């Protein structure tokens, strides 16, 4: 038992989550957006660990594991796409990808 209460853990997770969100919303570089998304995933993972730690169950860690898997797969695919986009558009600017609208 440690003295870290669940609120503290969850609040930290929320703070990281929100920071990641700011990154996603504010950055225009696609790579930075992907990185900020990783922060969000990580924050969610933290929340699971905190919860699992509260209940003393392994489920929280397993969920974290799954998140890890997802992050890996998503980063793989995402970066592949980023590469293609850079080849085609010669830019990583998310805002210039607005060929479809209306």
């Amino acid at each position: 038992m440690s003295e870290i209460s669940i609120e503290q853990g969850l609040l930290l997770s929320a703070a990281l989550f929100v920071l990641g969100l700011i990154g996603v919303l504010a950055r225009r570089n696609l790579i930075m957006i992907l990185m900020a998304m990783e922060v969000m995933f990580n924050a969610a993972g933290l929340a699971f660990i905190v919860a699992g730690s509260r209940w003393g169950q392994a489920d929280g860690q397993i969920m974290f594991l799954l998140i890890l898997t997802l992050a890996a797969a998503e980063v793989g695919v995402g970066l592949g796409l980023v590469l293609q986009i850079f080849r085609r558009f010669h830019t990583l600017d998310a805002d210039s990808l607005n060929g479809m609208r209306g």
Partner: protein
Amino acid sequence: MNINQFIALAPLTALAGTAIAVMIGIAAWRNFVLSCAIAAVGIVLSLAALGSVWPGTPVQASPLMLIDVYALFYIALLLSAGLAVLGFCYDYFKDRDGENEELPLLLLTALLGASVLAASTHFASFFIGLELLSISLFVLIGYPLNQAQALEAAIKYLILSGVSSAFLLMGIALIYAQSGELYFRGIEGYIASRDDINAMVFSGVLLVMAGLGFKLSLIPFHLWTPDVYQGAPAPISGFIATVSKGAVFVLLLRYFVSTDSYAYTPLLNVFSVMAALSILGGNLLALLQNNVKRLLAYSSIAHMGYLLVAFIAGGSVSSVLIVEPVAFYLLAYFITTIGAFGVVSVLSSPQAEADDLAFYRGLFWRRPWLAAIFTLMLLSLAGIPLTVGFIGKFYIFTGAADGGLWGLLLAVIVGSGLGLYYYLRIIVVMSMDAETVKTGFTQDWLSNVLLTVLTILLVWLGIYPSLLVNIIQSVSYDGMA
């Protein structure tokens, strides 16, 4: 894991196995036809497995999945849709440059994810199924690498889906943090053990809803929809519109029924707002749209709104009864949407995607059958009798009226009025006079067969739905009890 559970999972195993088989096939001999054929055989095998599993249901295969009639029905639906999409994909991609062999594989993994969603009774399987579906979709959307729009659509979908997944995960974490359960039954027990609404679980569900709302493209999480539909290859757009949304909806319904979340009435208020917004907003956005794929995207937003209305009615009538309208409507929506995107895909050529409305001018006189099929599909989307869409809408009406959702019904009516306008616009354009260059039938025999089958289903179920109604009824009453 005993043998019964293993057998019950046969449909899913078949899908996964086929995916690997396709991969091995590619390694051995890169051939698009071969890949498609293996995938098709795999789906058919999986469907056959469904039939053999059916009598032994329900089977709880570990806490993660429950193979019951409900799941089997929807898996069958999803697989059939997948099969149809595969057929359209075959015709769509067979003349295109590039290595298209991975496409069936990704389609299979996506279907696997969707099927897992349909059967899952646990947040872990829910999450992993959803992501399996999503990851496959990212690639499928951006599959034609030489098309700028496809890439744009893929990256948009990837980022937005990632963010929404993060919200979803946060929601699950909150629920878990409070209840200590990831298993739906466990959550039900937790909810049942408390008299009041637990704020944290409730908020967690709200966050999960936000994540699912994105997948269902409900307003205000809908903005990605038109762009992705437009950019993605036409059959894949159909796939997103049906399989991806359908699977998520199936899961949503199961979650709500099995955890008794209908007890959280504020949730229903949130849903009502989302439903009304989706119906009105979706139809409004489609109103003067000149791009057929975007138009269908907006219309799918509205249709999800209609579906949600029936879903919300579960709050006031026995939730078992609500499964039936949802099932029928989903089926109608599947047939119609796949058909509509199928037409678009048949008309598209490697040179040009047939999504501009101008392309459809005079289609009635150029390719009468195709135009007639498209007209029927559009009429079905509009909910006009003689088509399955009408029976679906009738179900929604019945369900919602049973639940006393008069305000939402009014929104449905207003939305339908708006909807008529843009569906009719397409029909009008198709029936306009144009210089009648008689283009010969293309060699897309597979697509033509599929479209014909879909049309027959559409009309048959529109005129004589009893057979299907009986099946669905058995699903509703046995499965969710």
